[in-house]
């Protein structure tokens, strides 16, 4: 299942992004290839979420350009699945688990959901061990279960590229483990980009690690072997453990990724 084709799915060319007058991302050039599991790490406010949203087209870059699926005819932005970190939803929103998962298959224009869509949604729930929750109210679930439902929503759209923004934030250890197992499973059939704070597990399961830092520089760790990643992250983990008592904001910007 390694990259049969080395043509990139996503290409970023000298992308800049800003909020108001503040530069969030600067001069980012990279590509994402099929079958990768890329993790994006970096301190708070380093532009991780912004980078995902630029790939998704939710945020327009202030400079540079983003090319999606240039070498892949027939793939459109709809083939990107997205698991947001937060959704601004009403805690009393009247919606069932199956409804939420089906929203990952909603189509534009006049086409409506068919039985086939429900079948796919149920299969995804089944795969994630949540079939029995299908008719439950979304608001009746635990935080971890909701997170899994949002992952199911992204998977229901049968994406070729899955972008996940801190999928393990705000959930307990056991649920976290399950989600990592699931992510590894998913990389067999799709490319995954994972934003994470977790410097312990995530780099170990990733094929490449992007480090985004507050200085808005982009370090791409190219051509890393497994040993390189391990040694790189051994350092990083030490760094994190070392400064464990500090607020994450206190992490030094320079050399943050052990570079």
């Amino acid at each position, binding site marked *: 299942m390694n990259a049969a084709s080395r043509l990139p799915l996503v290409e970023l060319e000298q992308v800049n992004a800003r909020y108001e007058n503040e530069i969030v991302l600067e001069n980012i050039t990279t590509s994402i290839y099929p079958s990768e599991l890329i993790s994006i790490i970096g301190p708070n406010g380093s532009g991780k979420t912004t980078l995902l949203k630029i790939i*998704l*087209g*939710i945020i327009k870059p202030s400079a540079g350009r983003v090319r999606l699926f240039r070498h892949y005819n027939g793939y*459109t*932005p*709809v083939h*990107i699945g*997205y698991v*947001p970190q937060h*959704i*601004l*939803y*009403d805690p*009393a*929103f*009247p*919606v*069932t688990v199956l*409804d*939420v998962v*089906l*929203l*990952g298959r*909603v*189509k*534009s*224009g006049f086409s*409506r*959901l068919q039985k086939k869509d429900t079948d796919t949604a149920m299969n995804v729930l089944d795969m994630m061990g949540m079939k029995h929750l299908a008719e439950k*109210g979304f608001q009746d679930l635990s935080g971890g279960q909701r997170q899994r439902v949002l992952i199911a*929503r992204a998977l229901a*759209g049968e994406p070729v590229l899955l972008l996940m923004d801190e999928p393990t934030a705000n959930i307990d250890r056991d649920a976290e483990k399950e989600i990592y197992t699931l992510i590894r499973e998913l990389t067999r059939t799709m490319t995954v980009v994972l934003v994470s704070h977790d410097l312990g597990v995530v780099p170990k399961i990733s094929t490449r690690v992007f480090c985004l830092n507050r200085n808005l520089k982009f370090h791409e760790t190219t051509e890393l072997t497994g040993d390189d990643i391990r040694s790189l992250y051994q350092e990083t983990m030490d760094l994190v453990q070392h400064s464990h008592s500090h607020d994450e904001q206190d992490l030094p910007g320079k050399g943050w990724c052990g570079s």
Partner: protein
Amino acid sequence: MVRVMIVFFRDLFIFDHVQYAVIGAVLASLSCGIMGSYLSVRRITSSAGAISHFLLGGLAAAQFLKKVYLVPIPVEAGALVAAVIAAVIIWLVTRWAKQREDTVLSVLWAFGMAVGGIFIFFTPGNTGNLQFYLFGDMSLINPSGLAAMGILAAVLILFFIFFYEKILAIAFDSEYAALRGIRVSMYSFLLLLFAALTVVVVVQLVGIVMAIALLSLPQAIAATFTRRLWQLIAGSIILSMIFTVGGFAASYEPGTPPGAMIILSAGFFYLVSLALKSFRKNRRTAQVSGAR
């Protein structure tokens, strides 16, 4: 109470205006059950309050033109124009200046009232109208008004049946809906426009001041026993019908303002539903702790 009901049902079969009022209540309930549910799940019910108060400007301006310049337009036309303007303004603001939405709603609210106040001052014989604008008058509903209410209800029902999934997607997570290729902005505008037109209808029933209640209380009650958007809509429609027809019937013989009766009954049942909800919750926690 029995006598009140007997008089109501007797007149229901005799007088046209009683029948119109009841049919109007049923038709308006369809629209406000649907749009109130949309507004409540998108958490923008306050925009209905702003729109309804903004309508005063349109209503009073139309009345002024009619009385002073003898322009042959119904006052509802003024309300319609104001509703469309309000929807466009709110849409533009939410689209281009997201962070200041509540400010603009307050401005619309006050500005409409101010414009209304000026026009009412310059219109001769205006005091009776103010009562009508603020509290509505169901007995003034006429066949052409019913036709308009019927068309709006039919359009809304078809729109929601046909685009249900898209509306749900936008209300639940508009960012994700946009990723699925849904034209969120266009739907948001259409729905805002529909909400504004619904407010015009509701204002005829309960007036400017209480319109927001009829667009939120039935939903708040229905939310305690529904788990899906379509159930919320259906429950709200039924509750709206009960409150509007019931409120009108109860106020008919004593001659109390029907709008006020409608909102009082809705408010009362809202409190009952809250009490039931906390009762059920307490019992559930009692059972859980009993099991331990």
